[in-house]
């Protein structure tokens, strides 16, 4: 009896609705700009409410597979620059320009759980997921801030080498935008909640604000995107070590 029930549910789902995988695929295949230039404001807040604010200038290409970030403020950090180039099937390339030492230092990328710039985002959080390395289960539909969303449970397969046990993701039904995501640690405890706000520009829907709260450490990160410029024709040769030293005006 139960076998038949499962088959009926699957057929129903196949005929009338999308599977978790299909929803994730639709979100992943959403059209994004070829390049993006923005001024970022990053506010880190610790559990006691103390804050650190940084201003950064970021240029990225190919869905942030190539990215260069210059630190503009605070004064102590001005001039520090970061370059990241993702390589499919190989470790990412990451370099940091340290103006006081007059040196570029390569940074390890094999620790995916490491925090990025003291924020609550790890390198894994910032890297786009390879669709087939995860399994997807549609938990249902839910209203999130008046937006009807698919609620998906995403579980990493071993090949994903993820530092999380699962994710619960809210993807808007209309635009397939990831609006909120919960990250569960290896022991199954909720670790972080990420919420993303979007705006439309040049026909693209792009993030304007990302807020990540680590519920375990009570530390949070607010990333705001200002002065967004899309598809300006950024050349590949910008993403070179020598350009780290050239602080944009």
């Amino acid at each position, binding site marked *: 009896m139960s076998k038949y029930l499962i088959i009926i549910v699957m057929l129903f789902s196949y005929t009338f609705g999308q599977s978790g995988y299909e929803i994730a695929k639709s979100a992943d295949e959403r059209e994004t700009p070829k390049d993006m230039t923005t001024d970022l404001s990053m506010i880190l807040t610790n559990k006691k409410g103390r804050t650190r604010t940084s201003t950064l200038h970021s240029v990225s290409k190919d869905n942030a597979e190539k990215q260069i970030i210059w630190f503009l403020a605070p004064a102590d950090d001005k001039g*520090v620059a970061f370059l990241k180039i993702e390589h499919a099937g190989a470790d990412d390339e990451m370099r940091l320009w340290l103006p*006081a030492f007059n040196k570029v*230092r390569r940074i*390890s990328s094999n620790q995916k759980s*490491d925090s990025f710039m003291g924020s609550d985002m790890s390198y894994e959080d910032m890297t786009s997921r390879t669709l087939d390395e995860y399994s997807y289960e549609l938990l249902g539909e839910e209203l999130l801030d008046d937006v009807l969303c698919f609620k998906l449970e995403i579980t990493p397969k071993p090949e994903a080498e993820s530092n999380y046990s699962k994710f619960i993701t809210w993807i808007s039904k209309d635009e397939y935008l990831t609006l909120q995501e919960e990250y569960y640690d290896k022991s199954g405890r909720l670790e972080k909640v990420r919420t993303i706000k979007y705006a439309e520009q040049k026909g693209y829907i792009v993030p304007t604000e990302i807020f990540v709260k680590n519920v375990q450490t009570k530390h949070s990160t607010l990333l705001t995107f200002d002065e967004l410029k899309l598809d300006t024709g950024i050349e590949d040769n910008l993403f070179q070590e020598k350009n780290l030293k050239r602080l944009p005006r």
Partner: protein
Amino acid sequence: MSSKLKNWSIRQSLDHPVRTILLSIIFTAIFAFGIKWLVIEDDMMKILPQDMETVQTWNTIKDEFGSTDIMFIAFGKPGESVYNENIFRTLWDVSNAIELLPNVYEVMSITTVNRIDGDDGFMEVSNLQPNRELSAEEIASIRKYIEENENIASRFVSENGDFFNIVVKPIPNAKTDVFSEQVLGITEELLSDYTVHYGGQIYLMGTMPAILTGDVARLMRVGVIVMAIILLLSLRSVPAVLMNFTVIILSLLTMAGSMGWLFKLTGSDKFLFSLMNTSMPMVLLTIANSDGVHVITKFFKKVRITKDAREAAKITMESLLLPIFLTSITTISAFLTMIFSPLQQLVGYGISIAIGIAWAWILSSLMLPAMLSLRKWKMDSKAIKKAGVFERFIDAVGSRIMRYHKIVLASALIVVGIVAFGIKKLNIEVNIMTFFQKGSEIRNSLEFLDEEMSGTMDMQFRIEGDIKDPETLKQMEIIQEFLESHEKVAASISIADIIKMMHKAVENNDPNYEFIPETRGKVNNLFTLYSMSGDPEDFESLVDYDYETGLVTTLMSTISTTEIAHFVNETEDFIDKNIDEDLSISTTGILVVFRDLTDKIVESSFISIFSSIIVICIIASIFFKRIRWGLIAITPLISSVLLTFGLMGWTGIDFSHITAILSSVIIGVGVDFAIHYISQFKRISNRSNDHTNLTNEVIDDVGYPIILNSGSNMAFGALLASTFIPIQQIGGLMVFAMLSTSLGTLTLMASIVEIFKNKLVEKNKEN
């Protein structure tokens, strides 16, 4: 006490004995109902006075950097290197299991610490132990890194390389006992194949109170049984001993219940039953026993003559109601002086024990005579017909004291003088190591951690300034160098150490660069570089979020409060002379807090002793209507205090917060003896004009209960069998205190009274 009240008491007790007994039980039950709310607090942190400067600094540090308390778990197999996959696997499991405990804030071990590597333009912050399962190459790499980094080696691997150390920090305000219990739950399960040593203040404070109270409770039970046997041998009457214990038990229930009621009604932590309150049952027991023994021995003496229980009880009450009232009021007043103690726990101690004493007085004055009068005593029993051994002994002593009173006085004064000289040698200090017997498990662990690891104690220096400024970091380094030059300091850690490690790493691991960079820009670049691969919380215990306050933590071997006081003074002196005035530096940590706490306890003990003696002198002067009597009443107290503390000086017993409780016992019991003696002296001298045998008669009358009292209280010599050295010392000193208070009354005070007999009698008559 007015004769109206005395007569009323006698009527209530002897005309309505059943009603009196029932009412006593009902009221005790009402008091005892409060036990429901009695909270036994094993958390030592609760007893710290929050207004103490070092406690405030400590709280600030906890707020800024998280808990500074540390528990150490060293495990391994003696003689077997830790560099093998099995022990790494265990270390991984234990570290991760402890990290998941709700009261654990942080676990530091080879499994959880980071390594900072730099080579060929590359810098990486990664886990020192990358996985649970390690290859031989990975183990070799970890070993190489540890051996190259003394700071990590000294904290996490034993000198012989056969033990790993896990450092566990609790969440702020975690209950020490719950925290320790949870951690031990994990280690006992996962480390059963290894030799394990535990240490750290939080561990000791978390486990010691429970073990200590358990040990004291066990020995107290033995003491009570011995006390019962002594009483039984002397009184030779089971019902009499049971009656005495009824008074004691009801008084104890009332004291415990009143503490619960007061906690319920006030909600104040003053009325929590903590480690400092463990002496309360013993102190009340001795005092309640004293009242009961006086009543019963007097009753037996009188029933032997009158052959009538009611009549004997009446005479006993007429004779003892006033002295028992006086002894109770003086002891209550003495304990109530604790209200002025700087330690809030002692305020609750004083109030609750005062209630217990007051109830013991009421029960001895009303319920005990009622019980004695109700019982059908066999007049031909040995207990009634014949005097006991103690009684006969005291009769013999009394006549000799009277005959040789000058020699007795001179001898007593010489003994007191010689022994009291030892006070000069009295050492006021607490050394946790000496709490435990040599060869005991805890002592072995502490010694192991001291010798093989970085010790079990820690101290913090909070430094306010611009932490990114190289000058500030260099000053931190100077302080650390000074601290590490002290023989008890095994290691110190601060953000300056991390900066030096990162500087080395960024310069391709060149050891020549292991120093504080010269510019603020470089320091800042290092922090930024670290943030690209480390966690934001990695420096949480070393520097605050705004880089305005840094923390230097020293890891030390076991140190006494005297040593810590010297160390702190030397360090503060060094800081004054060598460190920039712009930097604000404060010292704290559980050790420093403990030093101040001990000072406070000792200070409050001395205040309590002196104020009690003055209060007792005033009350005795008022009731006996002469200052002279007040002064005489405190003679045995003063001699006993001098003798006990002198003996402690001579024998090298430290005056600590634990041994300080003896002063309460001495005052509580000593004053009873003196007042009974004086009351009886006045009664007998009023009866006739022939005072030739006055002293002899007084000693005959009160000497026996005093000696029996003292002898039965000596049962607490059972504490000598404790596993804790200070408790053993209390057991021994308790025996000595009983001897000194009873003999002080029956020799020193009796000879003084004999010498000034005529004057005292004249004055007495005038009144």
